[in-house]
């Protein structure tokens, strides 16, 4: 959550106290989409209510499709996007799962859709609560994934997402994630950008070559059977575009800073990392708390920093390795599970780069599942354990911070269910 909002607005912009959902809705409005299609689900509903009100009040000139389900929301915006439109949709958890086939098709068609996903636990156990399992369950759908930490970053990322998705060199759909409940309903001070500035920021796209569009009489098809080499070619091009999006995101963040006066550092944000011996790796709203605890620990002389993941897909391995190389110990905080790997998903992915980290040791923390708060005390515990690891003490590889009963999953010990 927000730790360092500068309450000084840029000339003309408005300082407002709004929820994360309102920030997403206003961000979408400022991007001037042609077509919006969405379906309500907790904790996303407020976004589409706000957009519907903007539309009803004549403040948003878009085709608003009040679909009968999320599957149709994604299918409608995918098609509108391929026809040439700028589109927006938003969902969460069960909704994301219900549109999953269309989420994959959208990526495969390289339709530049922008979607907000308000993170929530997935179906299975009916958990109306926060968690990143929905994001993790779709991580290899072929979308660019961005994660916001606070309400300001939500509005800024929604706007930036269009520069990535619709960029001629990228043309990959973008999902902006933020924590349900913690951010969706949290009211914070937000510097709401001016429409002219947003128009200016997005105008770059108009100067680019026009992307291929599906138009009547255009004698053009989309969605033919991809077979053998044809399929391979498309997949390789998709992977390449994803790789290109890394540099593009850093570039757009810089341009964003020039116009709006705030930037985030690109794929990752490094907080007090320069001389840090010990690092927590996190994402989303937990980072606000982590920064607060780091400041406290720093006052007590502990050299700890935070690496916040802003772009999660494609996985920003290069910048992460560069930032983490040589650190004594790294604790990765996951708000989701990765069955069979014991540690959390982001921890598991980072492990693949362990040999490039010059001996940094790593441990996994699982916390913040189903609205269990990642409290100051929890973060302190994580930092202490990571410091212990740095000192060579024997530390458990995986800790379920809010569930001390959990040992490392051990089928024999746990027995039965």
């Amino acid at each position, binding site marked *: 959550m927000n730790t360092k909002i500068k309450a000084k607005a840029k000339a003309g912009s408005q300082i407002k106290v709004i929820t994360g959902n309102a920030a997403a809705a206003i961000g979408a409005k400022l991007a001037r989409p*042609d*077509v919006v*299609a969405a379906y309500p689900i907790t904790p996303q509903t407020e976004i589409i209510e706000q957009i519907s009100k903007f539309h009803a009040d004549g403040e948003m000139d*878009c*085709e608003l*499709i*009040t*679909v*009968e*389900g999320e*599957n*149709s*929301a*994604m*299918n*409608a*915006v*995918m*098609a*509108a*996007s*391929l*026809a*040439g*439109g700028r*589109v927006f949709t938003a969902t969460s958890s069960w909704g994301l799962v219900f549109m999953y*086939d*269309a989420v994959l*098709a959208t990526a495969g068609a390289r339709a530049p859709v922008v979607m907000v996903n308000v993170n929530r636990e997935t179906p299975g156990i009916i958990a109306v609560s926060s968690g990143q399992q929905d994001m993790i369950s779709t991580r290899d759908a072929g979308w660019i994934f961005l994660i916001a930490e606070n309400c300001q970053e939500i509005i800024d990322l929604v706007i930036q997402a269009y520069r990535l998705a619709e960029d001629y060199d990228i043309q990959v759909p973008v999902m902006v994630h933020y924590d349900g409940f913690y951010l969706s309903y949290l009211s914070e001070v937000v510097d709401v950008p001016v429409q002219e500035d947003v128009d200016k920021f997005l105008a770059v796209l108009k100067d680019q070559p026009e992307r291929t569009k*599906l*138009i*009547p*009489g*255009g*004698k*053009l*098809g*989309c*969605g*033919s*059977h*991809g*077979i053998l*080499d*044809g*399929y391979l070619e498309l997949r390789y091009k998709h992977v390449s575009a994803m790789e290109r999006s890394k540099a593009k995101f850093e570039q757009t963040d810089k341009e964003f800073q020039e116009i709006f006066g705030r930037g985030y550092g690109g794929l990752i944000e490094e907080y007090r990392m320069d001389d840090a011996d010990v690092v927590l790796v996190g994402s989303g709203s937990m980072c606000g708390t982590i920064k607060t605890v780091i400041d406290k620990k720093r006052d007590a002389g502990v050299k700890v920093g935070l690496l916040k993941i802003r772009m999660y897909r494609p996985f920003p391995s290069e910048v992460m390795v560069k930032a983490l190389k040589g650190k004594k110990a790294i604790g990765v905080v996951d708000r989701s599970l990765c069955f069979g790997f014991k540690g959390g998903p982001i921890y598991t992915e980072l492990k693949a780069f362990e040999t490039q980290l010059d001996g940094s040791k790593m441990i996994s923390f699982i916390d913040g599942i189903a609205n269990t708060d990642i409290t100051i005390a929890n973060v302190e515990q994580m930092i202490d354990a990571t410091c212990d690891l740095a000192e060579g003490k024997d530390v458990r590889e995986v800790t379920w911070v809010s569930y001390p009963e959990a040992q490392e999953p051990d089928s024999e010990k746990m027995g039965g269910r």
Partner: protein
Amino acid sequence: MTGKKKGKLTKVLDYLKHDDPFSKGVAFCPGCSLELLIRFIPQVLGNDIVITGTPSCSAPVLLGQNNQSWHSLSYFGTLMTGAAANATGLARYYRKAGIDNTVICFNGDGTAADIGFGNLAGAAERNEPFIYICYDNEGYMNTGIQKSATTPFGASTTTTPFGSASKGKNLRRMNLALKMAMHKIPYTATATMSDLGDLAKKLLKAKEAKERGFAFLHVFAPCPTGWGYAPENTIEVCRRAVKTNYFPLWEAENGKIRMTKTVKKPKPVSTYTELIKKFAHLNEADLQILQDDVDYEYCMLGGLSVLEAECQLPVSTED
């Protein structure tokens, strides 16, 4: 059909005002009604339509492979699950951008009546501005002739096979067109390939109706391979389906039903089923069940058309 000589043509050919955008030989089975239908539509409506299609028997021809295509239409290969929503997205964007368009969402009964029925109903409820055409071959043909909601009572399919403990599908078929008419959309119609003039008129009416919203065409489309009849009999199968009232031809404007062809003395349904192997195992009593169902549906249609004429649907204040 450019350069055709005036005066020498039958009525149906008069409707064919545009080129056939398909290549001469395409990958349908011989005698497939789908080929006739799919070539017919753009010749009547023009080549500037945007057509969407799903995985189905239409896919090999409609959707092409890699960068190769069997036709020169603009097309979009959709998922079975969300076809009507894809068409919605296209039509809505074109409307927003002021682009003249005729979007045709072209699907089998498997998509229309089963897996994609939810979003078809959603599009109808929202009165989306495009034409939805369901070609009904009464089953999932592309995956090897499985039962769908429109498979009729008694039909043997690979998931309702005839066997010592089974007489084929033991359920009645869904009346998809009537369901859609009940949405009170601007236009609903049934059609088939034995009555091409009727089909052409209905296509043109649908195109005109989509200016006011959703248009739905239910086209009876027999499948020689899946149903078991000789390829040269496709038109005869269509004709008998109409003459027995197995597949009556009607249309509905804003839900008001009107028969477009009345059969004076309907033949028994057995004159239709006798051509088709998927019914070959049915005895007289079984056929009577099918006959009763046909009679019931036809009676309902007549009753509804009378009711609709008596009851006034409130008119929207918009437009």
